[in-house]
């Protein structure tokens, strides 16, 4: 947290100019929190953030502070998620839920374009009216920023740039929230993605809640973030406030519910593609696709053509798909990954190993969603441990033929 | 033109890839039971169900192994060329051909009488072992190939 030690605690926010300096830190009183929402809206953003729905904290439209999960927390373990009341009135006193921000950047269903036949030898391509207003994501955790970066690399970081994703990315404002607690299935420390939010945000909030105090430490991440704060009543943060924020994050780091040894994980998994563990986990896995839907980085999708009856128009739609679906690997001769062990292996090796080959990083951020939302409680950290334990030890004659 | 031609010499017999390296004594015993034959294209060399009394080594030409069944078209399952061998039913009771063998081109073959070959293999176990060491891989490769053909690797 060296950045925090260099905290700029000088001038108050200016009004009308560029706003407070990038890197500077301020305090926002809980009672003034609505002014932040007002400022975001004034700046033209639709605010999306955490809200309680159907017994879980999910992401949806935030119209007022009342939409936030005030005083709620979640208890998570493998295959289990339960909302509980907190003893305090924290706005962000929970961990991550079943949703992730990918639903805004990479919608579950998206109309890509329409082909319209203009004459016998031609068609025109039209793109749907831009339905995406600028959005402020309120309450983005460190692991989720890492997930945004990972999906950014997939959709706009390669030779082929996805135009819809690029458009939505250009219009997103990330209001991060530092984790003050860890969930029962969290392992961001193992993945090097958290719990401290270090970069990739426009604004970052740390909820300071002790001894009757309820304030937010606000760090300015970008000029966009600074501009948004126009008119928000902030006062300079003191070094003691910064230390209090650091302490909250340090508490979360110590309370990780899970850990994963990532040492040599790429070669470990690719060297054990025929480990007996795949059959074992494959017997438990229902191939229900929950993990891929809850995962903030899973990007696999299918494209469909939707013709109208006249055959003059043909809409191209994209929808989320999953490597756990039998049809996902369908060739005309049948599915390549016809068994559940093969499909689980595909998911796990992609997430933790071949993602490096394809996109230059791990595909896992340690958020624990796949563990919590697995109906049979499969825990990838345990599966990796099992693969490591079952791996043949290098000995005479080993190597090359794993 | 179908029929025997210039007799084969022991040197020629020994030079054939399949028989190369077998003992001179063994080959000498075979020589009197060996002859060269030439066939026109389209000649049926062997018929499925007939007694199998001969072992064939192809010197020149092309031979098709066919399955023939009433009411269905002939089906060629393998073609063989120079250096290849066919016909081992003389070794396997009840000593009946299991395919038709038919030339696709004018062909010249070396024919060894099966019963004599059987006797020689029995009498000279070391040569017999070498002979089988050459024959078995051929049988195995053809079995492998047949499996893939049954698998219908290019099927739509």
């Amino acid at each position, binding site marked *: 947290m060296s950045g925090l030690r260099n905290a700029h605690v000088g001038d108050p926010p200016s009004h009308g100019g560029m706003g407070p300096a990038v890197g500077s830190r301020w305090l926002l009183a809980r009672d003034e929190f609505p002014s932040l929402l007002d400022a975001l809206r004034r700046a033209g953003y639709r605010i999306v953030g955490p809200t309680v729905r159907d017994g879980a904290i999910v992401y949806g439209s935030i119209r007022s502070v009342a939409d936030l999960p005030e005083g709620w927390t979640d208890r998570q373990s493998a295959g289990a998620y339960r909302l509980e009341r907190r003893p305090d009135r924290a706005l962000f006193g929970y961990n991550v839920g079943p949703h992730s921000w990918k639903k805004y950047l990479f919608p579950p269903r998206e109309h890509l374009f329409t082909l319209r036949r203009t004459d016998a030898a031609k068609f025109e391509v039209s793109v749907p009216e831009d339905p995406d207003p600028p959005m402020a994501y309120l309450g983005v955790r460190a692991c989720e920023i890492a997930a945004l970066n990972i999906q950014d690399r997939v*959709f706009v970081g390669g030779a082929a740039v996805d135009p819809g994703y690029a458009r939505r990315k250009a219009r997103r404002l990330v209001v991060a929230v530092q984790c003050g607690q860890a969930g029962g299935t969290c392992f961001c420390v193992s993945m090097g993605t958290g719990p401290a939010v270090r970069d990739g945000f426009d604004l970052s909030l740390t909820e300071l809640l002790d001894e009757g105090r309820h304030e937010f430490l606000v760090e300015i991440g970008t000029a*966009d973030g600074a501009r948004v704060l126009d008119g928000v009543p902030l006062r300079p943060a003191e070094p003691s406030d910064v230390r209090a924020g650091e302490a909250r994050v340090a508490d979360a780091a110590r309370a990780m519910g899970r850990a994963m040894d990532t040492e040599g994980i790429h070669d470990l998994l690719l060297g054990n593609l025929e480990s007996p563990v795949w059959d074992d986990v494959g017997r438990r896995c229902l191939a229900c696709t929950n993990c891929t839907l809850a995962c903030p980085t899973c990007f*696999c999708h*299918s*494209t469909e053509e939707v013709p109208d009856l006249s055959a003059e128009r043909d809409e191209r739609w994209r929808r989320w798909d999953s490597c756990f679906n039998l049809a996902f690997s369908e060739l*005309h001769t049948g599915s*390549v990954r016809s068994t559940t062990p093969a499909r689980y292996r595909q998911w796990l090796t992609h997430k933790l190993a071949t993602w490096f080959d394809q996109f230059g990083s791990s595909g896992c951020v340690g958020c624990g969603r796949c563990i919590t939302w697995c109906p049979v409680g499969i825990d990838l950290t345990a599966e990796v441990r099992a693969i490591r334990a079952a791996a043949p030890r290098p000995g005479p004659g080993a190597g090359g033929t794993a | 033109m179908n029929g025997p031609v210039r007799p084969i010499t022991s040197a020629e017999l020994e030079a054939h890839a399949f028989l190369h390296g077998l003992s001179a004594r063994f080959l000498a015993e075979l020589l009197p039971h060996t002859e060269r034959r030439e066939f026109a294209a389209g000649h049926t060399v062997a018929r499925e169900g007939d007694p199998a009394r001969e072992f064939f080594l192809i010197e020149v030409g092309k031979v098709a192994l066919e399955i023939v069944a009433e009411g269905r*078209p002939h089906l060629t399952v393998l073609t063989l060329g120079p250096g290849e061998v066919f016909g081992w039913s003389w070794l396997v009771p009840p000593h009946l051909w299991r395919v038709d063998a038919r030339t696709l081109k004018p062909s010249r073959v070396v024919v060894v009488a099966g019963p004599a070959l059987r006797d020689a293999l029995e009498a000279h176990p070391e040569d017999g072992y070498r002979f089988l060491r050459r024959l078995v891989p051929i049988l195995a490769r053809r079995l492998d190939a047949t499996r893939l053909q049954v698998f219908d*690797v290019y099927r739509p």
Partner: protein
Amino acid sequence: MSTAPEIAGPVAPVPSHGGPLEPAPFTVRARAQETRDTVSLVLAPAPGSEVPAFRPGQFNMLSVPGRGEVAISISGDPGRAGEWVHTVRALGLATQALAGSMPGTLIAARGPYGQGWPVDRAWGKDVVIVAGGVGLAPVRPLLLELLRHRARFGRLEVIYGARTPDDLLYAPELAAWRGRTDARFQVTVDAAGRDWYGDVGLVTQRLPDARFDPASAVAFLCGPEIMMRLTAETLEGRGLPREGIWVSLERTMQCGVGLCGHCQFGPYLLCRDGPVLPYRDVARLLRIRGL
């Protein structure tokens, strides 16, 4: 300060087109029935439009609009500009629609995509090409490219395997190729009737007498995985190092540009990193079932 654009509006220009998945209109200029279920289509662009150049082994995404999009390798001559040629076997809805397209039919096409055959690795070497079934289609541009530069490499051995004589593609051209004296084309089928005077048996059975210098040869393989694996193993048995062998692999492709995840094969996105890959890099993966 009441509107978004000054504050959060995009800094970078925002694409307003359909992106990398947007196809261009083509029409079927000519159609040739290759076999009972396979046709070759010559696709011409809309008047005034260009056809992007391609390298042998690359593929395009094609659809009869509304009938589904499918990845089809380019089987035309890379030296012929202004058209795309595709050989399509009618298997599913999308390919049935394509294969049934008569001249004049509107086709949505985009591409070319993928890494093709490393043609320049052939220069100065003997070349062995083994193709099976419709695997001859992506090999045809390679053959045409090689034959155009015949003086730049050594011997050329081509072995083509098919189901039956009725399943052979490019029959007239095949006859012309077989007549060449500067290359040897062997054709073998799995089963044949009495009207077939060619070879019957697996492609691997034609390999023992293929003429090439294992120390200085390259091999390009395209066909069902099991056929390529057996062929590669047989070639290695003849002393051709793994480093000299390339294979063209197949997995479902939907986007063609590395975004949708369908065509993963271990570390590879075949649409982006393949479909042609060095056998050295995939030999082990090809032996893993259900990858």
